[in-house]
């Protein structure tokens, strides 16, 4: 509670929290704001099949892209996609990372050595390129993107968790638990895990925005979501052909790229600000400098 209060008191933290809550609100109310497409809710509803984008009108408040895809629909249901990608990728990666790093550090010796060399191998490749190669191999679709992000996403958590557990397991209360005859499992889950998991939460909150951004980038370069899927990156990929507008009006098709861009920007900014503030609040070392 104290933590939340300190986050809210910080103007940047408050902005982040408001942005994240706003998007959560939109995602939850998606069926109310934009009536779901009867065929598949995550496939953007179409208004006509015109090959030219249509400006905002009462029927489509944010306009339509080529192919008649309703931009407002894409934004609203895309919020669900964004949360789904962010939350699933980060929670699963964090879980794997915590287990790999935590168990390695706790058991030590050969287990630690093997687990860390595997982590090093995953670390040795640029994240974005690794994920691109992975999603090419897995094929198209947002679920494939999620898998690809998890495969390379856990490595940071493993590193952080390992260094935390290494320091926590030397503390006196662990020796105390041991001398009381507590089993290995009990020590790990009841004593070590709760005391070393904080940094993981901080990284996770910062990571949600990043992961959504990378998923959007993948859709943007054409290896992520299928065309027509309610995904912000895919929508921006759509709008690329309309960047130049017409000779008389360079901003003729402004609505095709402006709305999805604002959506991605505010979503990611919200998580970054929230994560940054959380780190400042929870890490006293940082507080001194700020």
């Amino acid at each position, binding site marked *: 509670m104290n933590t939340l209060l300190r986050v809210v008191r910080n103007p940047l933290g408050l902005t982040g929290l408001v942005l994240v809550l706003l998007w959560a609100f939109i995602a939850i109310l998606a069926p109310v704001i934009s009536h779901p497409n009867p065929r598949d809710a995550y496939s953007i509803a179409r208004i006509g099949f015109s090959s030219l984008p249509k400006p905002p009108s009462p029927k489509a408040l944010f306009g339509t892209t080529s192919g008649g895809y309703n931009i407002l629909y894409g934004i609203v249901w895309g919020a669900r996609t964004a949360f789904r990608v962010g939350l699933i990728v980060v929670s699963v990666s964090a879980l794997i990372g915590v287990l790999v790093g935590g168990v390695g550090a706790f058991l030590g010796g050969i287990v630690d050595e093997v687990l860390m060399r595997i982590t090093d191998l995953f670390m040795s490749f640029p994240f974005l390129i690794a994920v691109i190669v992975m999603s090419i191999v897995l094929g198209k679709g947002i679920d494939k993107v999620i898998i690809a992000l998890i495969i390379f996403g856990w490595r940071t958590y493993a590193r952080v968790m390992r260094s935390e557990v290494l320091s926590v397991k030397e503390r006196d209360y662990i020796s105390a638990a041991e001398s009381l005859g507590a089993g290995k499992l009990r020590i790990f889950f009841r004593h070590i895990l709760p005391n070393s998991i904080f940094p993981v939460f901080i990284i996770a909150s910062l990571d949600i925005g990043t992961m959504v951004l990378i998923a959007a980038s993948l859709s943007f370069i054409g290896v992520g979501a299928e065309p027509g899927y309610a995904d912000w990156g895919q929508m921006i990929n759509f709008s690329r052909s309309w960047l130049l507008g017409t000779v008389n009006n360079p901003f003729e098709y402004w609505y095709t790229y402006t709305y999805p861009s604002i959506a991605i920007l505010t979503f990611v900014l919200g998580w*970054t600000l929230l994560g940054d503030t959380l780190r400042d609040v929870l890490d006293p070392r940082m507080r001194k400098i700020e």
Partner: protein
Amino acid sequence: MAYYVLKRLLLLPVILFVLSALIFSLVMFLNPYERLAVFIPNADAVGSSIPFEELIARYGLDKPFYVQYYEWLGRIVHGNLGWSPSARMPVAEAIARYFPATVELMSLGAVIVFVGGILLGTYSATHHNRLFDQAARVGTSIGVSLPEFIFGLALLVIFYAWLGWFPPGRLSSWAENVVYLSGFHRYTGMNLVDSLLNGRLDVFIDALRHLILPAIAYSIGMLSTMLRLMRSSLLETLQKDYVTTARAKGLAEKVVINKHARRNALLPVVTFAGSIVAKMLGGAVIVETVFNYRGMGMFVVTAAQGLDFSAILGFSLLIGVIIVLTNLIIDVMYTILDPTVVLR
């Protein structure tokens, strides 16, 4: 030191071996038909007349994983990276053609990130909590979460569609004619360097006009991180006792900052530099796609869309080499900046 560098270099083939086995095994998840499809450009048009089984047997696509890997490795060792259907040339040739373009973009980006980040970070730290510092804190928050492709598209809309100042692509068509057709010598493949070596200032300016937007687009995020890092690292250093001592000695503030504090504050910056190369390689993929800049990034995206695996494998190996070498350079730089670090 020399022993350490040699040891790391000897380790390079081992790392590449493991890496290539990893990537190759990923490709093996696809069935032989999918891997064969790459070699048949318009399968729909030719239809069922293709003898799939015969072709799969001829190229050995149905052999066990390790046999295929062994054969592939044998070709790689002899310098044959295979044929890239999407680029319509051998992979090695495509890399030789597109890689300099990416290096050019990365170098310009690196200059912006390091010079800008260190200078602005220092200024922000020495003017702690003043107007510029506050603005930098808000600005870097936005900069860090500003996606490269959105920022790039915004730059394109403003500076190309609206103002018409900076066009996308790598060169204007007249400059392309100069570079590819006349007696222009392509020493490095990097237009900025080549134009100067050939004494063509007009080509140099044209190349720079095409480079400036993508370079800005993909350095903005890293510039923000660099600025923050430099700022907080310098703020921490400025509280150290030896800085107080230097000030007490009566040294000018400029000397205290530049000679005493900044050098020590640079250590985290160097660590970040290692990750910057990896980030830039990833960013190049996105930014080159946005700006239609024909470099390694666009090459790999085209390859990806065409499931062109020899190109992707070749590209991945190149990235592996670059990353390993960068990490080595970073480690060596540590010893120069911080004499207490000893490499073994």
